[in-house]
């Protein structure tokens, strides 16, 4: 790996300010960083830690509304903070390249992949257009994209997310840069796709001996990719060490709490022995969007007080199943039963009491709460609608709900959503669902937009509420760590069908259905050799093949 010990990038005392509310606020407070040629540094931290901002600063770039206010960024002997923008610009793309989080959003929808690939090399006169196209095809091949000679001539919307992410890595390689900044390149991908992209990135960075800064919030991922790990918290460095040391022996308390997050696990409950009627029964449900069939013959039960986790990749029909249960998407075939009673297919035909039974909590608390409505009204409205509470009674009920979600009523009662943090917003989402006094709540990826510590708080809260109120949860997630911590039963979905289901302990013990096996083995683990082991087990050449069988 890093046998060439020359320093490529040296950042010292880097300070960055962001403009908000009419003034400049420091968001990165003096970070140091040294990167040698061919070395991979992992930057890890929660959102707001300043990871991306530091990554971009390594390119001498600050987003609109941000500025580098102090310190030095020295790239291969050139001081970027004092160099004029026109000189810094020619480094970008040619010597320092960037791979963004969402390849789907970062490829221009109006141009073919290969035309975007050749743009920088042609612009810098490093390669002629045809040469660069040939080179692109070779890189696509090395990154194990299917049809490497043809795929570049497609438009971004014609290519899948995992393939786009690899095409973007190829694009970053187009000028053979000395340094690539990877900004959460696999965060938006499913686990089975993530593993392919991780392997591809690691291979290509090795092959060209490119130095890289790998930004992520996922420890297990960074453990596979980085030689050194630096932990950041709110724009400050917490600690830095080589990967093995960092994983085995973190020094700082904050790092230890990050490492410990995945330890929350509540005891598994099992179904009642006798033949009690489940709270929710999904019975042979088919559903379609227009002509496209999205669910086929889906059946499972959810019992009172239990958590059923529905897992699968994006597009597997998890959220569609939720839409069928709530009546937002009437099934084309099959029945939805609540406590043994069949419900009308469409929510329009359901009575108020039937509607009250099933509530939802959404993934993006940001967009699921109206920013112009006070917390008291957000929670109060369903309480008033379903229970007919008014005046002082209603206020008491809202206070009680705020207490239940561990937010101080006097502090939050009359605030607006934008004043709240991500975790607090999600708690409000929970309170809103509880206001209807439901017996069943659908949690649609409720923790995936949150940092791990915050997410754990939400999981603990949901668990406590389940105990106190005897709630049943349907927990939609693609994150198997979440499943491990709170599920009682697991339903695995793929392409609109239920592939396998059963109690959690059974589901997590082999033998599994091959698809369940693929899902489980694709979840990164905190072992730096995990990726190697998995790739070896699967046979490197047919990586991804397994996902399609």
């Amino acid at each position, binding site marked *: 790996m890093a046998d060439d010990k020359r320093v490529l990038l040296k950042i010292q005392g880097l300070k960055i300010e962001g403009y908000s509310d009419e003034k400049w606020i420091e968001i990165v407070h003096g970070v140091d960083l040294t990167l040698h040629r061919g070395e991979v540094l992992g930057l890890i931290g929660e959102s707001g830690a300043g990871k991306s901002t530091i990554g971009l600063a390594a390119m001498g770039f600050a987003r609109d509304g941000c500025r580098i206010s102090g310190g030095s960024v020295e790239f291969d002997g050139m001081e970027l903070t004092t160099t004029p923008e026109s000189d810094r*610009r020619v480094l970008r793309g040619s010597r320092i390249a960037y791979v963004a989080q969402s390849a789907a959003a970062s490829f221009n929808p109006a141009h073919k992949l290969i035309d975007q690939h050749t743009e920088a090399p042609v612009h810098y006169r490093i390669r002629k257009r045809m040469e660069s196209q040939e080179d692109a095809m070779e890189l696509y091949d090395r990154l194990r994209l299917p049809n490497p000679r043809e795929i570049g001539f497609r438009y971004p919307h014609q290519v899948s997310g995992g393939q786009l992410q690899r095409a973007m890595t190829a694009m970053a390689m187009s000028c053979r840069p000395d340094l690539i900044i990877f900004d959460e390149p696999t965060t938006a991908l499913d686990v089975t796709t993530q593993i392919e992209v991780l392997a591809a990135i690691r291979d290509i960075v090795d092959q060209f001996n490119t130095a890289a800064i790998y930004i992520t919030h996922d420890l297990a991922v960074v453990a596979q990719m980085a030689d050194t790990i630096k932990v950041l918290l709110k724009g400050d460095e917490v600690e830095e060490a080589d990967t093995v040391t960092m994983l085995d022996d973190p020094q700082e308390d904050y790092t230890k709490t990050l490492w410990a997050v995945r330890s929350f696990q509540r005891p598994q409950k099992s179904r009642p022995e006798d033949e009690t009627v489940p709270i929710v029964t999904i019975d042979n449900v088919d559903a379609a969007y227009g002509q496209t069939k999205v669910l086929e013959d889906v059946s499972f039960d959810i019992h009172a007080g239990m958590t059923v986790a529905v897992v699968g990749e994006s597009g597997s029909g998890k959220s569609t199943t939720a839409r069928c249960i709530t009546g937002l998407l009437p099934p084309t075939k099959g029945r939805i039963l609540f406590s043994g009673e069949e419900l009308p297919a469409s929510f329009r035909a359901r009575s108020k009491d039937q509607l009250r039974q099933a509530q939802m909590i959404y993934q993006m608390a940001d967009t699921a709460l109206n920013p112009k409505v006070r917390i008291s009204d957000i929670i109060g409205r369903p309480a008033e609608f379903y229970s007919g509470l008014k005046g002082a009674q209603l206020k008491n009920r809202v206070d009680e709900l705020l207490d239940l979600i561990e937010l101080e009523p006097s502090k939050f009662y009359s605030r607006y959503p934008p004043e709240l943090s991500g975790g607090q917003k999600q708690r409000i989402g929970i309170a809103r669902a509880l206001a209807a006094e439901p017996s069943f709540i659908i949690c649609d990826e409720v923790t995936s937009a949150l940092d791990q510590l915050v997410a754990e708080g939400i999981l603990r809260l949901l668990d406590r509420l389940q105990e106190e109120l005897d709630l049943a949860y349907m927990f939609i997630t693609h994150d198997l760590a979440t499943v491990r911590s709170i599920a009682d039963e697991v339903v695995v979905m793929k392409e609109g069908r239920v592939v396998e289901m059963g109690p959690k302990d059974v589901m997590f013990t082999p033998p599994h259905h091959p698809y369940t096996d693929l899902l489980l083995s694709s979840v990164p683990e905190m072992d730096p050799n995990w990726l190697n082991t998995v790739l070896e087990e699967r046979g490197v050449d047919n990586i991804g093949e397994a996902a399609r069988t």
Partner: protein
Amino acid sequence: MGDVTRIIITRLGLGVLTLLVISVLIFGAVELLPGDIAQAVLGQGATEENLRALRTELGLDRSAPVRYFDWLTGAIVGDFGNSLLTQSSVTDTIAPRFANTLFLAAYAAVIAVPVAIILGIIVALLRNTLFDRVANVATLTSISSPEFFLGYILILYFSVKTGMFPAIAKLSDDLTFIELLERTFLPALTMVLVVVAHMMRMTRAAIINLLASPYIEMARLKGTPAWKVIARHALPNAWAPIINVVALNLAYLITGVVLVEVVFVYPGIGQLLVDAVTKRDFPVVQACCLIFAATFILLNLAADVGAILTNPRLRHPK
């Protein structure tokens, strides 16, 4: 391409339907006038006998739906009946005037559209600089001034004071193309000034709106120069709103030019329409309205189709 063809055919069908509805409205509006056309034409001093004679002559004794159908089938083959005043064919009266109007609109559009879009790109590139503000204020001033005022100002400076261009845009058959362009320059320029601001501001807004997109940041992080970021990465994705506002302004160039025509004494369809309205020449009014409506619908249709064609998802389905 199957998708695109289907969308275009659907839009075309909807356009025809809209035009049909409008034709009913136009016909109905004339029907709603107090009295009838005969009364309107002959005025208050008409005798019962005269009225009856005229009604028979114009076919007004038939029921409204029958007359509508008659009018519509005529209109489809280009026969709008005869003018009440001159008795000559409405189509023959309108055709040369409409051609003049189209010529003037095309003249103005050929200048205004490229100027507006290029200016829009430049101000997007130089956003929040002095140039941006000056361009904004200048174009806003020109859009907020009434056309006749702009026209007279231009006449004052370009013909009265300097004599560069003629103040009156009278046409005759023996003009060469160059002379024609020179003679109609001032009315065309007036219209350019009226429509440029709208298109320029939309181009600017559409481009700036995209500058926060991740793919624009990506382009910048690839070291793409600023002008290329705008021209190559932002503009191709901004066409849809720009095309729409261009179409709207082209339609205005054709249907909203009455004042300019009056100021420059230009023999266009606008003047004809005003004359026909004051003289209650209903067949001409109806024909003009239908032509205006068709123009609007056709241009908006073209804009829709244009916007669809710039969407790579539709041009290149999965």
